[in-house]
């Protein structure tokens, strides 16, 4: 019996390792010259869903480029995919990509914690770290020599929210911006706390009122106390910084406990995802969301988006699950353009060429322009947009260039909803 059990265990182990092995991409002795780039994302663990979604964007950009003749006179680009579910793994994997695989360029990574850890290893080894999705400000604030980021940081999210409240929400509510009472609920890890702090700081600068701030643990299975506290504070605008499960839970419990807010603004994360809509059905309608560019957007402002969507559906046989893939697609395209100019993967040369690279807003698939901060490597022309869930779709409503519709404000009360 024991032997059989042992045999069963071993075969199970063999099957799982074989399956995980097959997902890695390895070069199979191509005749064409290939340029290898490390792709570091969380593909298992808690962040796996968006990690995978982000990776798809990079993968599609590379696929498209290779199909159209590659870079630097026909060189083939190959992503060396690696799974980094947490910060420790990110360090270990970055190390492996650099020392064992001999790579000089790593792209990634969706999560700020992972980006922090991996970019540190890259910096130490003189390897260029190309970030396209992690939003924590300090990633580029550290002034590292080998870090470039194409996506906007967390402070930009807060800035857009406050600006939007000032310019659009306050007039719609018939109030002056200084009379608008803002409530904040946020999950209490680095992501939620950072964004919430920026919102508080910027709201104070505009002399707006903060009615309440409610931090909570994203692993909570009951948020009724948060809902009740907000209900008592009666804010005009409620800003939420949440991951997916807590976003769904909060909004379900808001309905159950009858929390009515005139304007509800989600800050990317869970509020963007198609799973959020699927879980809540009609109840999502009216929720505003500030995030990376999404898909119901002015297509003339986002050239290349249609092609991306077509390719996505062809490759994965489903619609994109969030805008993360698009942001990574755009970032990877910029990188490939730069590599095309340089001709080889040399961290210093690519960094230099990237700093010289310029793109006007409205010329990329996300609508973002490109202009890197010379000292920090942060793209100054990337910006989150304001979207609203209308008829089950996340429609871009602000800024004007990207918008396809005007936001419907304020939100109907629960009792008035059909």
């Amino acid at each position, binding site marked *: 019996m024991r032997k059989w059990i042992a045999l069963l265990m071993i075969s199970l182990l063999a099957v799982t390792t074989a*399956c995980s092995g097959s997902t890695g991409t390895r070069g199979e002795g191509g005749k064409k010259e290939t340029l290898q780039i490390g792709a570091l994302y969380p593909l*298992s663990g*808690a962040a796996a869903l968006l990690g995978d979604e982000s990776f798809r964007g990079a993968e599609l950009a590379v696929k498209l480029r290779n199909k159209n003749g590659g870079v630097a006179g026909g060189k083939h680009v190959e992503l060396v995919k690696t799974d980094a579910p947490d910060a420790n793994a990110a360090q270990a994997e970055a190390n492996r990509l650099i020392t064992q695989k001999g790579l000089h360029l790593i792209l990634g990574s969706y999560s700020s914690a992972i980006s922090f850890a991996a970019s540190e290893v890259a910096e130490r080894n003189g390897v260029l770290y190309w970030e396209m999705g992690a939003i924590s400000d300090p990633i580029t604030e550290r002034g590292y020599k080998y870090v470039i980021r194409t996506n906007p940081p967390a402070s930009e999210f807060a800035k857009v929210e406050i600006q939007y409240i000032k310019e659009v929400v306050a007039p719609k509510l018939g109030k002056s911006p200084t009379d608008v009472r803002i409530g904040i609920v946020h999950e209490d890890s680095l992501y939620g706390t950072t964004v919430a702090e920026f919102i508080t700081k910027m709201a104070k600068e505009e002399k707006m009122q903060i009615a309440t701030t409610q931090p*909570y*643990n994203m692993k909570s299975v*009951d948020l*009724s*106390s948060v809902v009740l506290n907000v209900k008592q504070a009666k804010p005009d605008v409620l800003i939420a910084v949440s991951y997916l499960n807590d976003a*769904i839970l909060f909004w379900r419990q808001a309905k*159950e406990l009858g929390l009515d807010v005139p304007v509800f603004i989600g800050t990317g994360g869970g509020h963007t995802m198609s799973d959020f809509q699927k879980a809540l059905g009609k109840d999502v309608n009216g929720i505003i969301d500030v995030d990376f560019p999404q898909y119901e957007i002015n297509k003339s402002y986002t050239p290349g988006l249609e092609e991306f969507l077509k390719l996505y559906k062809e490759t994965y046989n489903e619609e994109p699950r969030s805008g993360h893939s698009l942001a990574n697609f755009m970032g990877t395209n910029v990188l490939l353009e730069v590599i095309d100019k340089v001709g080889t993967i040399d961290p210093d040369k690519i960094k230099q060429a990237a700093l010289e690279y310029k793109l006007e807003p409205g010329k990329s698939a996300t609508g973002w322009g490109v202009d890197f901060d010379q000292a920090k490597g942060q793209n100054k022309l990337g910006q989150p947009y304001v979207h609203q869930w209308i008829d089950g779709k996340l429609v871009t409503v602000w800024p004007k260039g990207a918008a396809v519709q005007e936001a419907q404000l304020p939100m109907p009360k629960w009792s008035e909803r059909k």
Partner: protein
Amino acid sequence: MAQLMQIIISGILVGGIYALISMGLNLILGVVRIINFAHGEFLMISMYISFLFFVTWGLDPYLSAPIVVLLLFIFGCFVQRIIIQPILETSATVKIFATLGLSIMLQNLALMIWNADYRTVHTAYQTSVIRLGEVAISVPRLIAFAVAILIAVALFLFLQNTLMGKAIRAVAMERRAASLMGIHVKKIYLIAFGIGSALVGLAGSLLMPIYYVFPTVGTLFVLTAFVVVVLGGMGSMLGAFLGGILIGLVEALAGVWISPGLKEAVYFVIFILVLLFRPSGLFSLGKGSEEVGLK
């Protein structure tokens, strides 16, 4: 006043869910004397099964619950026979590694099969509430709570009055003496593990309309379940039930009065105090039961 009532009711209802999950864990711990670190993954599996019944045949989670319970009973027996049984006489470390390893394997298996997507079911009663003045009572949570009480009573009666129940209790108290009395200890282990898994299967079915399933959903609940079990008293089913309610209440009150971000901290402080002053748990079965499962 309405606010306070609302908090208390919300807390008790969540407590019911904790209690449901903890009772299965506690039974396994008390009888088989093993800390099942994969308990959360059993919950995840039962939620996925419930979800699959819903999408494939449109079966409401409440209707498919008996099937899920049965399937989890079989799954529990299988795991006990294949993984737990061979290591029962080994050291605590081996047991921890075995169930922890099982937990990691099941999580990643789920990730391979279903991706990390969040899946939910849609039912008409999902967000329906009973309103008593200003106080709102969520219907699916109320159902979960009522079932938790029902199960606690049924389990109590089963353990007290049936021959099998008595045998299970005998094994929990003193396995060697029980075996001398002619009780087939291995069979009891198998059944206790099966029942413990079936309970978590029921919890999964009742949770599906309230929550959503993804490969790591178990980790959200299982830590609380461990606290509940130790707090209530290992091996005591009543302890697991009352412990669940207590934690739910503490969480809700701390969330409103202190800060939602600190509610876990508050119940961990209580947990530490209990460990200091009454290490065998609030409703323990007596001296020495704090070491159950670690021998």
